[in-house]
């Protein structure tokens, strides 16, 4: 997940602050970010806006490496941000890393 970037890694929270198979919201003026935690403790971060009708993805059900939007049940792939077929659209991803149980991301 190390992308070439000048921007710094920011600490967000501990992995354990995110519920297993759940998410937390990071509030931000430029649009909230949802951080998700899968059963395998992998953490993903997406813009908290479904590409369909801007539903808050952070409020969806997380299963496997997918989140289901709470508004109209689009399934969004957490690894790519892409909507699963036949729906088409993409939610912006943010680089995430986990070190010593702490979550960092680049805004």
């Amino acid at each position, binding site marked *: 997940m190390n992308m070439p970037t000048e921007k710094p890694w920011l600490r967000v929270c501990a992995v354990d602050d995110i519920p297993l198979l759940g998410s937390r*919201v990071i509030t931000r003026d430029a649009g909230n970010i949802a951080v998700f935690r899968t059963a395998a403790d992998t953490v993903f971060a997406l813009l908290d806006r479904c590409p369909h009708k801007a539903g808050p993805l952070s409020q969806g059900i997380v299963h496997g490496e997918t989140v289901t939007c709470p508004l109209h049940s689009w399934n969004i792939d957490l690894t790519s941000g892409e909507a699963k077929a036949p729906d088409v659209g993409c939610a912006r991803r943010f680089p995430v890393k986990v070190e010593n149980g702490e979550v960092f991301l680049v805004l």
Partner: protein
Amino acid sequence: MKKLKLVVVGNGMAGIRTVEELLTLAPDLYEITVFGAEPHPNYNRILLSPVLAGEQAFDDIILNPLSWYAENGIKLHLGKTVTQIDRVRRVVVADDGIEEPYDRLLLATGSTPFILPIPGKDLAGVISYRDIYDTEAMIAAAKTKKSAVVIGGGLLGLEAANGLKLRGMDVTVVHLGDWLLERQLDETAGRLLQKSLEERGLAFLLGKQTAELVDDGAGSVAAVRFRDGGEAPADLVVMAVGIRPNATLAESAGLYCNRGIVVSDALQTFDPRIYAVGECVSHRGVAYGLVAPLFEQAKVCANHLAQLGIGQYKGSVLSTKLKVTGIDLFSAGDFIGGDGTEDIVLSDPAGGVYKKLVIKDDKLVGACLYGDTADGAWYFKLLREGRTISDLRDTLMFGESAIGDAGVQGQSRAASMQDSDEVCGCNGVCKGTIVKAIKDKGLFTVDDVKKHTKAASSCGSCTGLVEQILMSTVGSSFQETPKTKAVCGCTDRTHAEVRKAIREHHLLDHKAVYDFLEWRTPNGCATCRPAVNYYLLSTWPHEAVDDPQSRFVNERVHANIQKDGTFSVIPQMKGGVTNSTELRRIADVADKYHVPMVKVTGGQRIDLLGVKKEDLVDVWKDLGMQSGHAYGKSIRTVKTCVGSEFCRFGTQNSTQMGIDLETMLANMWSPHKVKLAVSGCPRNCAEAGIKDVGVIAVDSGWELYVGGNGGIKTEVAQFLCKVKTADEVKEYSGAFLQLYREEAYYLDRTVHYIARVGLDYIKARVVDDTANRQALYERLLYSLEGLPDPWAARIAGAQKNEFIPIKVLA
């Protein structure tokens, strides 16, 4: 991990459908290679007849364009025939010498047309009807040649004859049988069909056996000679006398074949690394030549290839439709009948309508329809379900519309609808859009249509209609949604099986359920998780632990999400009764949190709309009221009228009765939402007739009604019983709701549950059996005992993280 290698021999509908199913189940398991003997990508073979008839072009019937193979990383060998399987080295060899190794091999070699072993069969101008090459040959022949003879009066032969006629040839159909389509129609319907085709200019020679094809002296066919000595001139002969499973390759590899490649219920051949699907297969002694069974096989085979090992193919019940525009015929099951069967027949030769239904032991076992096939789908459904038809018998012949309102299942109106007519009111989808998607994208199931068009994907009330449109658009390749539907794509188990396993094996958490029932996904999906969560909690109250992450957001945060991501807050107001103090607090909260809208709900409460998630806990604290559960698959409200306290007509204190019921049922989770109402007299101002439990006071006691619904499809509640005291109202309605909680499937309202088990069953369990009623009632009270008000729990700190956003300082 290195991917396994899957080689597919056969690039037709069965093979590629299996690959598609496999890709959805296990997209990354295999490196896939496909061999196709034809130089084309996978196309819809059943639509060759419309191509021949000039109604569609070849491009229209391609199911998977070359780009699809590329997108899915599939290596495609077109125009190459596999000639050898080396089972020891595990490689296949193609006719150009190319070798591909395999870990799993899928044979989908299809069938070959049966060619009569008669003199002249190899002459120029003699073709079969099997693929696009044959179709193009016929189209070309029709341009230069005049007279055609089609040998074989089956489905394929008649479609070929019709196409050639439309392309301007003189066509004679030669048929060995006494009537046309003798495997699909009885004699009467066969004669009607013949008459109608004769009116279109086709000629028929029935009961004729072909002896020889006559050479014109230059190596081309000139005529067909019959065993009885007669002749018919022909410069094109189409042999459509049947198909043979193409098992040559499998046989040469030493696989056991017997009129097809013999496979198990898992579609596995006698070599466990090799699977086979489609027309090349012999399953329990049957080789299928229609598309619906092939797709059923594909589903099961993909399941095993994906190493899930759950599916079983047990054979198919078939129905057929003739794809000749303007001729409607349909048959399914045993439509000839015999000993022990009864026929119901409607015959109107002048009007061109004939219908025959065959009944055995009070069940529909066969149907043969000609001229009016609108009810084909319905009869096929009755036949596959095997339900008893004694209650429908009087009107069975007149179709589904004759049984009156078809209720939530939709009505038979698909055929009469215009393309511009709206089918799905939730998502604004018209019939034309659905038909186009079915044709363009090659859809065969209601689920496919839902995914691609969104029709029937919201409230679901148009599902029946979508199914009918699908049936009328794709005909015999239609795949009916199975009645016993799996919970979701994560499993083949039905809701009933999941409930049973949880109960009988004392399963207490999600992981136990997924492990025990061999779920395909590690932690389910947004469809099954909430259902399983409910089943666990309702089966093992105080033992199973609620999993908030398996609940839809509304039930997780105890408020109702709105389109902009804010929430609505509805405090409990038992029986719709409030007071000035509560109203003041609500007003203060509305001011303090800048609530954009305050609205009175249909359930006699007050809704604060547009509350931000991070404000929810503070709003609840300031309100100082309990959760109204206006967001859950749970008890909602008990609507009441003012009753005998104030109303001059009231016979009982309906308001207090409502408050008591709402108190009793507080915090109750259920398969779907549950609404109650109590009216103080038969004028029924509380609208108890459209509630899950409706209570109507009469002078001598209370009448109880169940299964009403004011939603998607208005359903009037049915009379359950009459009781005398308020305590009895609580006991009877509580027992009914507990029965529903224990037995209904997730997302079934009470009306759906009652429709499934029958009102008599409910009465037997709740009204007639006192001990059982009391036991149910006690179980309800036990489940609800000690449940905290969810708002109070969160004010006290439960799931705190859920409501507090993270701030990151950049």
